[in-house]
C-alpha cells in the first residue's frame, strides 16, 4: 500500500517561491554586471564605436602592459609572502607565547584594517622618504651629503607599504584559527618529545591551513588590485596593472586600451578568487 502511495505522481505545484532570487539578481546585474559589460564592450570598440580588435591586441601585446603584468605579479607575490611571514610570526606569538600587553598590540595592528592605505604611505614618506626622519637622522648623525635610505621610491617601498597595510588581513584569520587549536594536542605532542618548532610545523600549521589559504588568497587579491599605495609612493618605473589602467584612461585618454587592460586585471582577480574558493573547499575552510 505504502509503495503504491509512494509511486503516485506529485501534484503539480505552481509556486512563486523561487522568484525571490530575481530582485537581488537584478540589482547585482545593474551594479556589477552591466558596468563590466560596458567595459568589455569598450575594450573591443574604438572611439567611433566600431569593432577594433587589433587595437585591443596591440594594447595587450605592448611592452608597457607586459611590464605592468610582471610588476603586478612580483609585487603581489612578494607582498603576500611578506604578509604571510609577518602575520604568521605575530599570530604564533600572540596565540601561543603571549607577552604582557600582547592583546593590546594585536588590537592596534588590527586597527590598520580600518585605516586608508594612503595614510600608511604618507607615514612611510615621513619616516623613510628623502626628507624623512630616518634619512634626516642619518645625514645629520653621519655627516652625509645625500640621504642614504632610498628604497621607498622603488618596488621595495611599495612591497613594504603593502605588507604593513595587509598583514592584519592575514593576522586576523590566523588568530581565529589558532584560538581553535586544541591545547591538549600541543601538550600531548610536547610530552611525546616534540620541540616547539616541530609542534608548529606538524600540529599548528596543518590545523590552521584553511585560515592560511584564506588569508593568503585575500592578501594576494588585494595586492594584485592595489592602486592607492602604488600611486601615492610614485616609485620610478613601478607601474602595475591598476596604475596602467589609470594612466591609459586619465593621462592618455586611450579608453579602449584602458578597458582591455582592465578586463585582464578583472580576469586575473577572478581566477585568483576561483583558486581560493577551490582550495578553501578542498581544505574545508
Amino acid at each position, binding site marked *: 500500500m505504502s509503495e503504491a502511495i509512494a509511486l503516485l505522481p506529485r501534484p503539480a505545484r505552481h509556486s512563486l517561491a523561487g522568484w525571490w532570487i530575481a530582485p537581488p539578481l537584478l540589482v547585482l546585474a545593474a551594479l556589477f554586471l552591466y558596468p563590466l559589460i560596458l567595459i568589455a564592450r569598450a575594450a573591443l570598440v574604438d572611439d567611433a564605436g566600431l569593432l577594433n580588435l587589433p587595437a585591443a591586441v596591440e594594447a595587450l601585446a605592448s611592452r608597457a602592459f607586459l611590464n605592468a603584468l610582471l610588476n603586478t605579479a612580483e609585487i603581489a607575490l612578494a607582498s603576500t609572502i611578506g604578509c604571510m611571514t609577518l602575520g604568521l610570526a605575530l599570530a604564533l606569538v600572540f596565540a601561543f607565547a603571549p607577552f604582557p600587553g600582547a592583546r593590546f598590540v594585536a588590537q592596534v595592528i588590527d586597527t590598520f584594517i580600518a585605516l586608508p592605505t594612503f595614510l600608511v604611505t604618507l607615514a612611510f614618506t615621513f619616516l623613510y622618504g628623502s626628507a624623512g626622519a630616518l634619512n634626516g637622522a642619518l645625514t645629520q648623525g653621519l655627516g652625509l651629503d645625500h640621504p642614504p635610505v632610498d628604497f621607498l621610491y622603488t618596488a621595495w617601498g611599495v612591497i613594504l607599504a603593502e605588507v604593513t597595510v595587509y598583514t592584519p588581513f592575514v593576522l586576523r584569520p590566523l588568530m581565529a584559527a589558532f584560538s581553535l587549536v*586544541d591545547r*591538549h*594536542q600541543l*601538550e*600531548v*605532542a*610536547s*610530552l*611525546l*618529545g*616534540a*620541540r616547539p618548532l*616541530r609542534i608548529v610545523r*606538524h*600540529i599548528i600549521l*596543518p*590545523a590552521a591551513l584553511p585560515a592560511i589559504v584564506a588569508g593568503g588568497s585575500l592578501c594576494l587579491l588585494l595586492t594584485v588590485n592595489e592602486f592607492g599605495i602604488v600611486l601615492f609612493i610614485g616609485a620610478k618605473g613601478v607601474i602595475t596593472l591598476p596604475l596602467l589602467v589609470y594612466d591609459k584612461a586619465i593621462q592618455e585618454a586611450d579608453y579602449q586600451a584602458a578597458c582591455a587592460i582592465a578586463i585582464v586585471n578583472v580576469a586575473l582577480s577572478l581566477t585568483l578568487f576561483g583558486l581560493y574558493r577551490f582550495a578553501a573547499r578542498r581544505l574545508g575552510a
Partner: protein
Amino acid sequence: MTLSAAFTSAEVSAVANAAAGSDVAFDNVSVAYRGAVVLKRLSLEIGAGEIVAMIGPSGSGKTTALRAVAGFVRPTTGRIRIGGTDVTDLAPYERGLAMVVQNYALFPHMRVSENVAFGLNARGAPRELIAQRVEESLRVVGMPQYARRFPRELSGGQQQRVAIARALAVRPRVLLLDEPLSALDAQIRRSMVEEIAKLHADLPELTILYVTHDQSEALTLADRIAILRDGELSAIGRTGELYRHPPNRFSAEFLGRANLLPAVVEGEAQQSGFVVVRAGEARLVAAGRDHPPGARRLLCVRPQNVTLGGDAEHTNRIVAALREIHWQGELTHLVLDVDGAPVRVVATRLPHPPSRGDRVELFFSPADASLIEDDAVV
C-alpha cells in the same frame, strides 16, 4: 577485537620489556596561579610500575599535580623527581613521559599510524623501529586494522585506544592519564577500565599516574589512591585498605558510599587495633588506634558490609527503623534510621524483605568498621 584479546600476542611482551617505568617523587610541591595556591606542599612517592590514582572533587589540585609532573606548570616551591632525576626545570619534551587526556587529543590531519608514530618521529627514532613500534602498539590496543584510518573515522572508544597506543609507542618512563575515560559513555567506560587494568597486568613495569574524579575507576585500577581536597593531600593508602578503613570523613564519603554513625570511645578492645565505642544504645567494636576514651568520633561502615542477619563474624548489632526499600534487580537498597542518623544497606539477596516502619536488626563485622575523625567542613 579488544585490548584483552590482543594481550596474548608476543608483541605485548616486547612492549613490556622495553617500557620500564620510573618512580616519581613529589617533594613538598606547591603550585600557585596568580597568587592563588592550588596545590599545597604535596609530598608523595610513586613506585616504579605502580598505578597511583589521584582523586578529588573539582579544584582539589589533582590535575595541577599531574600537570606539574608533565612540566606544564612550574611549582612555586618544591621539586619533582622522576627516576631519581630532578625534572623540575626540564621542558615537557625532555621528561620522557606520555599522556592520555579526556578528549583523546589525536592529531586530526594524521592517520592512526601517523598519530602513533608521532612521538617516535619527534624523538628521532629510526624508520624501521618506528614501523615496528607502531605495529606493536596498535596490536596491544587491538587496533592494527585501523592504521590507515583518520581519527574522525573512529568511535570515541577506538580513538582512546589509539591515544593509549600513541602513548605506549614511546615507552614512557611514566604514563600520565588525565581523566582518560570521562568522555566515554558508561558502558564503554566500564569496559575500558577493565582493559586498562589488563594492560597494566601485562605491562607491570609501566608507572601510571591516573587522575580521575570517578572513584570506581580509581578503585578498579589503582594500587594506591591519593585523595586530594582543596589542594592538600587528604589521604593516601593501598586501595583496598583506604576503602575499608578511610582515615577521615572526607575520604570515607569520597571513596564510595559510607554510613557514618556518631560514636563515643569507651576504650581499647581485647583485640589489638580495635576499640570499643558506644553509638546510641549500641556498644560496638571497630578498627582504630590511639583514640582516647571519651573522644567523639564517627563509626564508618560501608553499606554492603551491613547485613540483616548476625553470625560469628558479624558481631556488631544495631537496631534501626526501615524508612525506604528499593529493589533494583541484582541489589536491594535499604535506608534505615539509627537514632536519627541515616544508615544505608545494600543487600544482594533478601528472601524476606522487611516493610517500611519495621524495626530491623543490622549486623556488621568489627573488621569492616573504622573509627575516624570527623573533618566535615562547617
